[in-house]
């Protein structure tokens, strides 16, 4: 079975600092890639998605992610975090072979004042 790995269960960043949340997947084909955010006691919301084309995709609230096929990665980045970015972030992948949606385990982002 294919998998999505978010190696960091928790990441702590100071407000105003830059951020990178890591995501790697195991799939040799062409994946559809997503990042979702979950605020406390809420459902998941889409931050950004990659289907094809420019490997750097822009999302909401200043987030971006870069698809690096050679590294099987889709890391999420933000230049300057705000306290309101505190949430759990999920990476997800859809394989183009069977269209199965596979989720990472999530990374909890904590913003220090």
């Amino acid at each position, binding site marked *: 079975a294919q998998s999505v790995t978010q190696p960091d269960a928790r990441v702590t960043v100071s407000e105003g600092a830059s951020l990178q949340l890591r995501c790697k997947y195991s799939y040799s084909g062409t994946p*559809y890639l*997503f990042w979702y955010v979950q605020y406390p*006691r*809420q*459902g*998941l*919301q*889409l931050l950004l*998605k990659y289907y094809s084309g420019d490997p750097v995709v822009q999302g909401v609230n200043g987030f971006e992610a870069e698809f690096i096929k050679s590294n099987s990665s889709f890391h999420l980045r933000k230049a300057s975090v705000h306290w309101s970015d505190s949430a759990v972030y*999920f990476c997800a992948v*859809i394989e*183009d072979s069977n*269209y199965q*949606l596979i*989720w*990472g*385990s*999530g990374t909890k982002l904590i913003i220090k004042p």
Partner: protein
Amino acid sequence: EAAVTQSPRNKVAVTGGKVTLSCNQTNNHNNMYWYRQDTGHGLRLIHYSYGAGSTEKGDIPDGYKASRPSQENFSLILELATPSQTSVYFCASGASANTEVFFGKGTRLTVV
């Protein structure tokens, strides 16, 4: 913005009782999904559906049934609830299998 509404938002059930969680989406999406979310397990797929009348087993279907009577509605049924089914349940919908999904706000179920 896709709208997925779950009811109830909170539920306390007794062991052995029947529980029905409801989900309604107003965006005419073909696909609908039920997940549960537990600390340490992330999101796990219980059942999903490709359209009215269809239900498919996900990764952890045991102890759950699903029903999709219409395009808009997708229910999750626990015939004999157990404490191990205490969790937060999320419904989601998507236009097709290779597009993003939209989530409801979740139902917090406690089985005592």
